[in-house]
Every structure is written in C-alpha cells, then in structure tokens.
C-alpha cells in the first residue's frame, strides 16, 4: 500500500499533503448544532455546506441539518447580501428554527460580505434570532471555526443581569463527541453543581431512533440557557483552541470568571476538572468519583506492562491531543511524534514541556503538520502504535502499525461518538483500546509457541 511514498528524504514545505485539519466552517456548523433549535447556515457556495454536512454526517451517522446561501457566480462578484437575506426569510418560513447560526466561508470572506449588517437588514421573525461568526477557511482550522461560533454565542446571546451570580457553572466543552459532552455533564451532576453546557450536541447528533424524525432534536443548550450564562458564577473553558476565546469574552462581557482547562481526557486533566469544580463551588467530591478514579489507577497499575515504554505517534486536534499526550505519559508510553494539523506554536511548546518533564528525549511535537509528514516519520523510524483519525488507517496499513481511532473524523467505525473518552470512564476506554490494540498485535505476530492464554 502507498508504494508512492518514497523512502528517501524529501523536501515538503509548500501546501499540505494529506492534511490533518479541515476548515473553519465545519467547526462552526458543529458548534451551532449544540444550540437547541438551531439551524446552522453556511454563507457561501452550496458546495461548502454539502461538504460539511457530509463530513459531520459520516462521523456521527446522524442527520446534520444546515442551510446555505447558495452563491452563484453573480453573488460572488456582487456580494452575497441578497442571498443571505433570502436565506433568512426562507429558512424561518420553511424550517422554522429558533435560531439561525450563520458562518462565513472563504468565498464570502474573500468578497468581504458584511454579515452583521446584512443580518440587521434581514426579515427575522419576532422571537427568532440570527447570530453569526466569521470563519474564513484560510485561517486556522475546523477547531478555530468551532471556537469562533462559541464566541458568537457569547457575543450575541450571553447577558448579565448585574445581580449576584448564580451558583452555576458554565462549561464550554470544546470540540468533542456528544458522548463526551454527556459524560462531562454526568461528572458535574455527580458533584451536584448546577450547570449550563454550551454548545451541547448530545442528543442532537446522536439522537435516538424512535420512529419520529425531529429536525431539531431535544438536545442542545437553549437560547435562554446561553443567555443566562452571563449570570453564572464560573466558566470552565475546556480546550485552549476551542473554548478559551468564548470563555474570555464571557468574562469580559458579563464578568463571569473563566478558568481555562484541558479537555478532561486522562487522569490528570480529569482531576483538574473535578478540582476546579470542587474549589469553585466548595462541594465535596463524592465517594463514587473517588472509586471511579481509583479504578483507573488500579487499571493503570495492573496493566502497565501491556503498553509502558511503547512508542506511539499521535495526531489530532490540539485540544484533544494535548491531554491525550499527557495521559499517554501517565500510562508510561513514549509519545514519539505528536502532531496537530491546526496551527499554534503553543501546541508545540506544551507538548515539548510534557515530554521534557517525562524525560523523553527524541519526541517531536509539531503544529500545523500533515499526515504525509507523519507518515514519513513513521516510515523512517517506526512506532508501536498510531493514534489518530480514520485518515491514519493508510499509514497504519502501509507501515503495518496498529491504529487506535481517536478524534475527528472517524468514518470507518461506528458507535465511537457515543463512547466517552473524557473523564475517568474515558480513561478506561482509552486504556482498553490501547492495550487491546497492542495485545492483538502481539497475538497476531507471535509464533505459535508464544501464543498465550494469559496476557
């Protein structure tokens, strides 16, 4: 497989070969789905919207609804105002959402459409809302788009009534699966803290099948909840790339203190998440969580020899890869290559610092990388395990390395979006996946006489 990938050293500086990122509008669309009753709207050519819906649908195996301004050549030359106005009118009349969340595209950004002004000039029915985010595809990645749409939620919706803050936490969960959002909510509930999670795509992009189709499933943060987030006592912004900007804006706009945290993947990041809630609200941590945590420690100790010291290559979105790498180090693994496709020097320095602290010398951390580069690294210096999205399966086969699927997108396996990787339970899933991948490989490769009943 992939005989075209050369073994010799090559020069690759311009553009991307096998990119490890998508573009902003995709993330904006996903974030918007985390508002209850929201129809995301793509202000651009209809191909963008089609592509983003397709990518999200394939990952979540669930309907992903969004509309488009359906630019033509004329609109591209003369501006998309008419298209957006028509869209707003048609969407509310035909699809009747509570709220439309408009994001731009490289097309509308390049021609310079003034979206806020166009929205103001549009016919928005009484009680309905249109928000927008600028998400030029040529800046950042899908994670940036997610962040920008989260920020738009705050800037358009969040309000402070100026009274005493409510004993409630806002959680910006970051670009994670609905199963993760559900698990984050469970952890907060275990602690007995009131919460508003936004965006919240659980029960939206993993809606049950009950025989009745709902264009706007029962999940998602309501507009009212997001509005009231300005009156919460604390915001936990999970993931620097996806949530910090919105959290900071909420602090600035409504005076809600924002604690930036990692997405709670792995033991340490989950501990920090729990402690932030404990310290923020003075609640005791229930015994049930102590037990959950202790079971993770127990599993780590009991199974360390399945994975400790193994070399691993990791690629994915920065907010996922940073805590995952931290957890891999907790597991005693050796992250040899840690990559994100999203730009951000901070990624490299955070990873490098972790590797340094763990005494790992030859680890490579790279932001704004691509999978061709990762493939070359793995080809030149093999690893024991690869962790990344479905695109990595080509590297896995070509180099005969086991792959643990993680992050976005995963197109070739199902159920994953329902299974949390966050929290202590997520630790167990990750340990099981990693451990099993390595043991499967051992079982596959060993001689008959080394095929063992007990491992």
């Amino acid at each position, binding site marked *: 497989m992939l*005989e075209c990938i050369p073994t010799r050293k090559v020069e690759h500086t*311009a553009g991307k*070969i096998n990119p490890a990122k998508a573009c902003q509008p995709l993330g904006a669309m996903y974030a918007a789905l985390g508002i209850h009753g929201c129809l995301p709207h793509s202000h651009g*050519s*209809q191909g963008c919207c089609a592509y983003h819906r397709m990518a999200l649908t394939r990952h979540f195996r669930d*309907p992903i609804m969004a509309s488009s301004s*359906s630019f033509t050549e004329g609109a591209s030359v003369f501006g998309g105002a008419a298209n957006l106005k028509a869209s707003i009118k048609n969407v509310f009349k035909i699809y009747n959402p509570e709220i439309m969340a408009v994001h731009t595209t490289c097309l509308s950004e390049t*021609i310079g459409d003034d979206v806020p002004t166009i929205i103001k000039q549009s016919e928005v029915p009484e009680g309905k809302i249109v928000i927008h985010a600028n998400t030029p595809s040529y800046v950042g990645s899908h994670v940036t788009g997610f962040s920008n749409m989260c920020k738009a939620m705050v800037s358009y919706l969040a309000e402070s009534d100026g009274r005493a803050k409510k004993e409630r936490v806002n959680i910006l969960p970051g670009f994670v699966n609905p199963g993760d959002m559900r698990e984050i909510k469970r952890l907060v509930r275990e602690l007995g803290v009131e919460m508003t999670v936004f965006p919240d795509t659980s029960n939206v992009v993993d809606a049950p099948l009950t025989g009745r189709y709902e264009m706007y499933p029962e999940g998602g943060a309501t507009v009212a909840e997001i509005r009231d987030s300005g009156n919460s006592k604390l915001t936990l912004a999970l993931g620097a790339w996806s949530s910090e900007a919105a959290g900071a804006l909420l602090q600035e706009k409504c005076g809600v203190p924002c604690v930036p945290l990692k997405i709670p993947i792995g033991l340490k990041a989950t501990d920090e998440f729990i402690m932030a809630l404990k310290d923020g609200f003075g609640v005791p941590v229930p015994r049930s969580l102590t037990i959950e945590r202790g079971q993770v420690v127990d599993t780590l100790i009991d199974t360390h020899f399945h994975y400790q010291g193994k070399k691993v290559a990791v690629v994915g979105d920065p907010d996922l890869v940073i805590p995952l790498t931290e957890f891999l180090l907790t597991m005693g693994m050796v992250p040899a290559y840690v990559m994100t496709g999203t730009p951000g020097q901070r990624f490299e320095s955070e990873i490098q610092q972790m590797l340094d602290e763990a005494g790992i010398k030859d680890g490579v951390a790279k932001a704004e990388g691509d999978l061709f580069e990762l493939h070359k690294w793995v080809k030149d210096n093999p690893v024991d395990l690869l962790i990344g999205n479905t695109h990595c399966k080509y590297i896995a086969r070509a180099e005969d390395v086991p792959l643990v699927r993680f992050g976005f997108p995963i197109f070739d396996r199902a159920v994953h979006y329902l299974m949390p990787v966050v929290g202590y339970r997520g630790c167990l899933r990750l340990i099981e996946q990693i451990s099993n991948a390595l043991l499967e490989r051992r079982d596959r490769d060993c001689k008959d006489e080394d095929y063992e009943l007990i491992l």
Partner: protein
Amino acid sequence: MAITDERLEEVLVTYPDNVKKNRKKHLLIKNSAEACQQIEANTRTIPGIISQRGCCFAGCKGVVIGPIKDMIHIVHGPVGCAYYSWGTRRNKARADETTPPENVYLPLCFTTDMQESDIVFGGEKKLAKMIDEVVEIFHPRAISICATCPVGLIGDDINAVARAAQERHGIQVLAFNCEGYKGVSQSAGHHIANNGLMVNAVGKGTVRKSGKYVINILGEYNIGGDGWEIERILKECGYTINCILPGDGSILNIRNLHLADLNLVQCHRSINYIAGMMEARYGMPWLKVNFIGVSACARSLREVAQCFGDESLIQRTEEVIARETARVMPVIEHYRKICQGKTAFVFVGGSRSHHYQYLLRDLGMETVVAGYEFAHRDDYEGREVLPTIKADADSKNIPDLHFEPDDEFYQEGHVYLNMPKEKYDELRKRIPLGYYEGMIKSMEDGQLIIDDVNHHEFEEIVRMLKPDIVFTGVRDKYISHKMGVPSRQLHSYDYTGPYAGFNGAMIFAREVANAVTTPAWRLVTAPWEAQKE
C-alpha cells in the same frame, strides 16, 4: 398511496410564494396522457433551501478529475475543499500493466492550504512551489490543479502557473477553473472537467490496444468496483477495454481515448460532453448503456454487440448473458421474495436514479419517486429537448466547446463500426447510438419526478408516501432512518459493491433485502411507549 397534485400541494404549502412558484416547476407526476411533460432542471437552488447539491469544484475535482489515478491532483485553495473531497467517493483504482503502484496517488490529498496572506498577496508562487516539490517527491506523470472559490476572486492565474510548471518539469499540468460558485451544481464542474480533458489529453496518445473491438467506457466511476465488473463482462463477450473514464482511469489511457471504435456512455450527465466532442472531432459513435440490473445489463450488452454486427460477437454475447443470468437469477429470486411489491424513493446525483429503476424492477419493486440532484432537462426528458434548452446566466459561463473534424483521425461513425452507412443509420433508430431517452419515458403514470429535491420535500414526501426504502446519499440516509424508513446509499453503496453487472445485482439484492428486514425495525418503539399508545 399514490401522489396527486392535491397532495403535492400539501407539501408546497409551507413555502413562501416565490419559492413555491419556483419549486412547482421541478416536480412532476408522470402522466403519459400529456404529450410532453416538461420539468425545470439545472437552475439555481433557492438560497436557504436545504438542497443535496454540491458545487462546481465537487463536480470537476471530486467527480471527474479526482479518480484519475496516475495524476497528482493539487487543490488550490484553503484546506477544506481538498480535505472533504479526499477519499470520500469510493472510486476504486489499482495498479495495472501500464501504471505501476508507485504511480497510483489516489489515497493522497494535495492542497496549497491557502492562508490569509495568500488571499491577500496571491497564491501563485505557493502553488508553483508545491508543484515543484510534488514532482520531486513523487515523479507523477501529470498534475492537475483545481481551483476553489477564492482563486478566481483574487485572480490567481492557475493556467499560467500550469504552463510554466509544465515547461519546467516536462510533464503535463492541467489547470481547471472550477471555482465552487460557478454554475448551479456539480454539473458545471463536470462540463469544465470534460472540456479540460478534451482539450489537453484526449488525442495526445498514440497507442491503440490490440483487439478486434476496442471500446471506451465513459462516465463509469468504478464505485465499489462497478467498472471492474462491467469490464469483466465486456471482456468475456470479446471486447478490449481501451479506457474507463474516469474510474480506475489513467491519464495515459485517456490520451488514447480516440484510438477506439466505440464510446459507451454510462452516466450521461457527467460525461456526455466528451462523448459528443469526440463524435464531433473524431466521428466516433457513442452508445448510451446501462449495466445496472440484470435485464438492463443484458439489453445493453446486446446493443453493444449489435453495434459491430458481428454474428460471432452476438452469439458470444448471448452465451455470456445466458450463463450469467442462470448463475445469478436463483440468488435474485431468493431476495425477490423479500423485496417483491415494496416501494422505493430514489434520489441520487445523475443517471443512477434512472438506472436503478431497472434493477429494482428485477426485484419486483416499484420506484414511486425518482429525481436527480444536478441533472439537466435532457436527463429527464431525453436528448430531443436539447435544442429547446436555453442558456441562462449560470450556464453561459461554462464554455461549450465546438470541435472541427480532426484531420488525421476523423472517420464516419459507420466506418468505426465497420458497417455500411445504411445499416448504421438503421441501427441508430433501434438502439441509443448518440441518444439518451431520459428518465421520464421509462417511468409509470402516477410516479413522482423531482428535480433538486430539498429537505422539506424529502421529509414531507417520505412521510406521505411511506416508501419501504429510500435510495439516496449519506446526508438524507439518517433522516430516513429516524423516520423509520430503511435506506441505502446509492453514491457509496454503503461501502459494499459492486452493484453493476450480474454480480452487482446479486449484491444489491442482498443489501436491499437486509436493509428492509433488519430485525431492529420491529423494535423501534420502546415497550413502555407502546403501552401508552
């Protein structure tokens, strides 16, 4: 329950007036009593309407150019367009006798990943640099550059970059100005891609494959291996396949496209341009075929055989049909017992919505609604309406190329087929040589035809007609499921295949039977909810 105008009205009543007026023209209930039922197609999708349509880039790079296996396809633009069109179409390809594995690049994705500075200062240099690096790394035979939306707007001259690179590296670099906003759907991109290949590739080769009957298969995408199954059957009949365009195709073979005797056209919409242009330039005849469905496949095989009028070929064709039919029919019969009498909603991109009706009929199933995402009127009504289609602001921007007969290679159609002109003319009356009848003629009265269906219509019509299965794309698949209706994807076949040819019919039959009989369908309602009802 059959659809009626009154019930259609219920679907449309939600629309604002202008939308309703527009959409009405895209919906048609087949009525053979009406002389020529006209449908509106290939016009703009209304902003805000949730359509299945993609863009010009998707049609050019995603559909026609992307599958060419021995070229490196560089998408010039921000990362997204390359990313989303990467590996998502199931155009299978493999190394072959003229293309070694090192020259197959299909699993890879190349993008200039334009950044803000490229938008401001132009991306030509970056593109040129990337071409240089890619040539150095991979030594491809040829490169394509496909433009995305901003490229045209900021004025990057990809043709100039391509020309310069071609000179620098001595390999072909083809540029396609297929910015997403062009035209009204993927269709514009097909046209641009057809034009580009015709101008830059077809006719540049010099190798004619040996064999008595050398044919091309155009508009076959080799989804799930369809093309290979078709190739298998045609080879058994005695043909030499010169090139499948584009599925598992190579630029090497495309350059030799003119060195064949006959073009078969599978997907009329996306590839009729090349078929027509080759007829104009080389005189090479083309035949519309459909290899989807046992009976349709047999019919197409017979028609291809007739094109050459060779009795031994006809005989051999009949033998292949008899043997293959005998092999697959017991399996089809097994599944037909499950499928018989069930109704289908078929909505896909181009020709599939028409082709699959034959296969569904093989299974005893009725297509109650069918429609195309990006077809033109001729795909619905037949090529006879072509002269009546007027260019509009959107279609005018895609050049319609006209070729003069080629000095060296032009021959009359009947010469290609080695038959007297009279016989050829007579044959054209009987079989679709240079002709496509469109979808509507083969549909039954009372069946609904929709152009560019949108979410609202999809949801309402599925709810109204309660088809037993929906054939569509991935975006509507899960909506269908949530409504309690099984679905199969007809773009990707839900990752099985082939569906074409004799083997494909068996696989399709099994998959459809599985989809409608999945036991979980009987467990949709929770028992405590059922108690409430």
